[in-house]
C-alpha cells in the first residue's frame, strides 16, 4: 500500500473524511461500508434487502473486515495471498471521480478500493444462503463476523475480481448519480439504517453492462450448486417438481454459456432485473429458469413478457425462501386469489420481483393497479397490496419504461392470464385461498393495532394475530 497517500488508507479510516468532499461527513469506514452495501444491492438485491430489513448495518462487520484488511477473517497463509491481490491493485484515485467534488464513496474510489469492496461483497455472497435463512440481525452479524475459516480463498478472490469492474463503476456512478439525480430513497419498509443502503439511483441498473449480469448469474449459480440442500426440507412440495425441472435447464445453460453481448437493446432495462429476480428465486430452490430464458433469448421486450406467461416463474417466486419476511405472507394471500382475476396474478409476479429500487413509491401510475385490485377482489387484496408494495412499483416502473419504448402493459396482462391455469392446481388453490384469507384477517388485526397507535392495548391482540400467522406459515411450509 502506498502509505497514507493512496485512496485507500486504513490509517485514516476513522478520522472524518480526509477528502473533505464527502457529502455525508461520516468517517471513511462508514462511507466504505455503505459503498460496499451499495455494491451488494446491485449485485444481489434480495440479500441486500434482507440485511437492510433486519437492520444489519454494514459497519458492524465491515469495520472489522476493513480495519485490518480482512486480517481477522483468514489464516495468515490465505491472508498473504489476499493481500498480494489487494496491493497489486492500483491505489490512485479514479479519474472520473476526481472530477466529481462530492463523491459519496471517496475512500474506495480506486482500483484497489474497488477490489476491497468487491471482495467484501464476495464474502457476503459466500454466506448468502445462511444469511437469508436467518431472521435475526444479531445472528446474521454473528455469521458475518465469525467468517468460516474453511473457505476457498481463491474462489473468493476470483469472484471479487469478477465484481471489481462493477465495483469501480458503481462507485463512480454512484457519486455522479448522487449529484445529478436526487432520488429519494423511499424504502418504506424497515428502518433504513444504513446510510446508503437502499438509496442508490434506480437508473443504475440500466447502465450496468449487460454482460455483467450473465456472468454474475453464472458465478452465483455455481455457488448455489454448492449450497444445495440448505433448508431444502422446508421447501413446500409444490415446488419440488419445479426445482427438478429447473435443474435440467440449469445444467444446459451452464454447459452452453451465452456469448457476452455489448449491444444496447431495448430490453436493457428489463434484463438485469429479470436476472436479479431469478437470483432471488434461485436461493435454495433453484428457480433459475427465467434467467435461462433471458440469457438464451437475447431478444426484445416481448421476450420478457412471454416469460411471465411461460408458467415458469409465477407464484412460487416469493414463497418462503424469500428474504423478505412480509412477502412470505403476502405471496400466499395473492396465490390464493390468482384464479380470481388476472390483475391479481399480475400482482403476484410483481411481488416476486425483488424490490430493487424501492424508491419512487410515490409514482403516479401504481395507484391504478391498486384500485383495480380493490375492485375486483375486494378485501382479500388489502394484505397483498400492503406487502407487495415495493415489488409492484418496480414492475410498474418497468412497464412504464417498456411502454415508452414500444411495449405495453397489455402484454403483461395477457401473459399473466395465460399463466393461470397452467401451473396451478385448483384444489391447492382453494385451500391456499382459505389460508390466504385467514392470514389477511390476522394482518388486518395487526394493522388496526398499528393504526390506532395504542401499543399497550393492542399488543396482546397483535401477538395473538401474529401467533395465528405463524401457525399458518408452519402449515404452509409443511404442505
Amino acid at each position, binding site marked *: 500500500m502506498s502509505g497514507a497517500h493512496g485512496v485507500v488508507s486504513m490509517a485514516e479510516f476513522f478520522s472524518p473524511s480526509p477528502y473533505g468532499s464527502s457529502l455525508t461527513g461520516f468517517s471513511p469506514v462508514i462511507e466504505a461500508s455503505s459503498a460496499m452495501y451499495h455494491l451488494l444491492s446491485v449485485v444481489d438485491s434480495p440479500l441486500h434487502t434482507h440485511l437492510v430489513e433486519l437492520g444489519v448495518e454494514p459497519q458492524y462487520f465491515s469495520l472489522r473486515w476493513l*480495519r485490518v484488511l480482512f486480517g481477522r477473517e483468514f489464516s495468515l497463509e490465505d491472508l498473504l495471498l489476499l493481500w498480494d491481490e489487494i496491493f497489486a491493485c492500483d491505489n490512485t484515485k479514479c479519474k472520473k471521480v476526481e472530477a466529481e467534488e462530492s463523491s459519496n464513496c471517496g475512500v474506495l474510489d480506486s482500483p484497489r478500493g474497488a477490489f476491497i469492496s468487491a471482495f467484501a461483497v464476495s464474502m457476503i455472497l459466500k454466506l448468502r444462503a445462511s444469511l437469508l435463512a436467518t*431472521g435475526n440481525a444479531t445472528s446474521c452479524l454473528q455469521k458475518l463476523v465469525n467468517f468460516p475459516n474453511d473457505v476457498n480463498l481463491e474462489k473468493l478472490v476470483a469472484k471479487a475480481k469478477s465484481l471489481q469492474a462493477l465495483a469501480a463503476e458503481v462507485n463512480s456512478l454512484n457519486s455522479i448519480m448522487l449529484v445529478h439525480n436526487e432520488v429519494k430513497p423511499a424504502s*418504506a419498509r424497515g428502518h433504513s439504517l444504513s446510510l446508503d443502503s437502499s438509496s442508490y439511483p434506480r437508473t443504475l441498473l440500466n447502465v450496468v453492462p449487460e454482460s455483467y449480469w450473465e456472468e454474475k448469474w453464472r458465478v452465483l449459480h455455481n455457488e448455489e450448486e454448492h449450497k444445495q440442500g440448505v433448508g431444502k426440507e422446508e421447501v413446500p412440495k409444490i415446488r419440488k417438481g419445479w426445482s427438478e425441472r429447473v435443474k435440467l435447464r440449469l445444467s444446459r445453460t451452464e454447459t452452453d454459456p451465452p456469448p457476452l453481448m455489448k449491444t444496447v437493446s431495448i430490453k436493457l432495462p428489463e434484463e438485469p432485473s429479470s436476472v436479479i429476480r431469478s437470483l432471488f428465486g434461485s436461493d435454495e430452490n433453484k428457480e433459475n429458469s427465467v434467467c435461462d430464458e433471458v440469457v438464451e433469448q437475447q431478444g426484445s421486450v416481448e421476450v420478457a413478457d412471454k416469460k411471465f406467461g411461460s408458467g415458469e416463474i409465477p407464484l412460487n417466486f416469493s414463497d418462503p425462501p424469500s428474504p423478505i419476511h412480509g412477502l412470505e405472507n403476502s405471496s400466499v394471500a395473492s396465490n390464493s386469489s390468482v384464479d380470481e382475476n388476472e390483475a391479481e396474478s399480475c400482482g403476484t409476479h410483481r411481488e416476486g420481483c425483488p424490490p430493487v429500487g424501492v424508491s419512487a413509491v410515490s409514482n403516479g401510475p401504481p395507484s391504478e393497479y391498486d384500485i383495480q385490485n380493490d375492485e375486483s377482489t375486494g*378485501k382479500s387484496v388489502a394484505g397483498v397490496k*400492503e406487502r407487495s408494495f415495493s415489488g409492484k412499483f418496480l414492475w410498474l416502473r418497468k412497464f412504464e419504461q417498456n411502454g415508452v419504448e414500444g411495449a405495453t402493459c397489455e402484454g403483461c396482462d395477457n401473459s399473466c392470464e395465460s399463466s393461470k391455469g397452467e401451473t396451478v392446481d385448483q384444489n391447492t388453490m382453494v385451500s391456499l385461498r382459505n389460508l390466504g384469507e385467514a392470514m389477511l384477517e390476522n394482518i388486518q388485526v395487526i394493522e388496526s393495532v398499528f*393504526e390506532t397507535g395504542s401499543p399497550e392495548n393492542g399488543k396482546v391482540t397483535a401477538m395473538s394475530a401474529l401467533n395465528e400467522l405463524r401457525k399458518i406459515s408452519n402449515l404452509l411450509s409443511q404442505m
Partner: protein
Amino acid sequence: MAGRVDHEYDYLFKIVLIGDSGVGKSNILSRFTRNEFCLESKSTIGVEFATKTLQIEGKTVKAQIWDTAGQERYRAITSAYYRGAVGALLVYDITKKQTFDNVNRWLRELREHADSNIVIMMTGNKSDLNHLRAVADQDGQNLAEKEGLSFLETSALEALNVERAFQTILTEIYHIVSKKALAAQEAASAAALPGQGTTINVNDPSGNDKRGCCST
C-alpha cells in the same frame, strides 16, 4: 422457515458489554458463552457478537450479547450499538483506577444513546488479581449504589461471578419486561372485546396510504 428455529425461546434480550479497552469484556463474554478464556486475546475491532440461551424463572431467555470495542477510535460508530439494547454490562478493571474513573463517562454515554430504561450492571473484573487491586470493592459498591446499578466483582479467568452477573442482569430485565407485559395484558383484556371489531372495519379502508410505512 428459519423463524421457527429462532423462536425456540420466550424472550430475546440484547445486552451490550461496555467499558474501557482492556478490562476484559471479550473474555467475560467468551467465559459466559463458551466457557473459554484466552490470555492473549486480540483487541476487539468494532463489535463482536455472541448468544446464549438460559432459563430464568422457568422461561427460556435468549441473550444476544454485543461485545463492543473499548477503544476510543471506534467511538463514532459505537453509539449505534446501543439501539435496541435492554441491558448493559459496564465493566472496569479493578487493577486500573483509570477504568473505574471512566465508568461515569460510560454511564453518560449510555444515557445519551441507549434507551432510558436500560438495565445497567457494573462489574469490576479481574478480581483474581487481588494483589494488584487499585479499586476497593467498597468503592465499586458505593458508586453502584449512588447510580442505582447492580454490582459484582468478577473474574473471567477464574470463572468467578461471570455467570451470576449475566443471570442477575437478565433476571432483572425479565422482571421488568414481564411486568410490562402483564400490565399490557390487563389493559388489553379490559378493552379488547369491544375494541377489536370496530377498529378493523373503521381503519382498514382508510389506512391504504399509511400502509406503505406501517407494513414495515
